[in-house]
């Protein structure tokens, strides 16, 4: 059994953050923090030791999610997965993130993504099939899902 993940949620919609927290915990992982703005996210990256951060592109201080991903990437503290209804705003290089869970995700889509990410973070590459609605960044595609 692989270790559960410590998750940082960066999401400006309380309802979505709440529900994401429940789903993460139901899947056996833990939520170490919830940030609604890029500033909050930065300080939480310092104060928590999350394995993975779920980052929305649009936060309370604007479309700053990509900056947050850059910041986390520089600190090398945790990995990043974007969660957004606007995947077109993600730059081609994904700011170092693993990939994106496109909103609206389904409950099962998220649970499957959590399992897939747990495998990928703890014992890469993941063995489960990539869930529908989850897209890998080109960099991680090359490592986690190389073309046969």
């Amino acid at each position: 059994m692989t270790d559960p993940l410590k998750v940082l949620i960066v999401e400006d919609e309380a309802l979505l953050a709440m529900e994401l927290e429940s789903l993460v915990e139901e899947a056996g992982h833990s939520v170490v923090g919830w940030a609604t703005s890029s500033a909050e996210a930065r300080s939480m990256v310092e104060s928590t030791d999350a394995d993975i951060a779920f980052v929305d592109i649009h936060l309370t201080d604007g479309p700053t999610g990509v900056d947050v991903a850059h910041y986390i990437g520089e600190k090398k503290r945790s990995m990043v997965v974007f969660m957004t209804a606007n995947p077109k705003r993600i730059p081609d290089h994904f700011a170092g993130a693993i990939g994106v869970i496109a909103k609206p995700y389904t409950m099962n889509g998220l649970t499957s993504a959590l399992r897939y990410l747990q495998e990928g973070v703890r014992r890469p590459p993941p063995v489960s099939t990539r869930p529908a609605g989850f897209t890998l960044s080109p960099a991680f595609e090359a490592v986690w899902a190389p073309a046969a």
Partner: protein
Amino acid sequence: MDWKRTREPADAWHMTDDLHVEHGKGDPFAAAIRATRMSMIITDPRRPDNPIVFANDAFLRLTGYERHEVLGKNCRFLQGPKTDKEAVGQIRTAIEDKADVSVDILNYRKDGSTFWNALYISPVSNDKGEVQFFFASQLDVSDRKRSEHRITADKDRFEKAVKERTAELEAALEAQTTLLHEVDHRVKNNLQMISSLIIMQRRTIKDEATRHSLTTMLERIEALSTVHRRLYQSKDVSRFDVSDFAKDLVTDLLTASGRSGIKPKLELDPIVISAEKATPVALMVNELVTNALKHAFKEGSDGTTAGRIGIKMSQPDGHFNIEVSDDGVGMAEANGDASFGMRLIKSLARQLHADIEWRDAGPGTKVVISMPNEPQQKGLSHD
């Protein structure tokens, strides 16, 4: 053109004496040149500074000078500040090379007014090939030049107008695209919130039947969510790839059911339907697949469920066919017509002008839906 006689001194004629040396006064050709409406002059390159030795009346009328004012002078007195230096250079080179030249040049009259002169100069040689004269004709082409300028100005104005209009349209398109993205973003976020609300509510409910209702509702909303997630992934927002959607949906529903013994069998031709059909088709497929998952399969003695759910999508001539099949217990135990799910399927089928048929596949059930679909290459026609 002004046809009044030019005023000239009585002895002006004698000033052309030099010309008479070689071209007699009685020569009809010389008479013709004197009288023609075409402005003409002759210069003598053998004299210092190549002066005018003959100018006809038309030349004097055109330029406004008296004959005595032009004879013996080099033609450059016709030039002025706005005369194109390059045109002057062309003339100079031709004279030096003793060659023909044809050039449009801006010239000045005696009163300072300007005219466009379509100048033609050619050398006149004697038998030995020595250049004796230059013969030059002048044609006032100011009207032509004016219309040329007007056309250029019009063209510039139109180009500017087109450029401005294009910029406006591009800005409008940009605004529209931004708006579309914004609305799309909100729709997706709201769908996410609706499912979140249902999931949260469901957690608080103990009653099994109520929980089940909420789960069914969540599945339907998630089917809509999957449509929306897929809808704006392609460049063309008016088309929807229904086979990609079906793959997502079935994978999702099967994993969610937690029954790993049930295997999907997907035979999906790439089929594109118009965006407005996406939602009813998605809801219908969702109902059929969830229905089969819930009712078709019985638990085995070991507590697991084994079976197969098949989805086939094809498009024989102008039709779009969906087959959802299972190898379960068959129709006998399927829900009756009265169920809401069944009513939903039948209403959606009516909306899509689809024929729907339940067949006993022994073992299991096969539902066949067939609806008209426009050819793939044809543009979308909105009702």
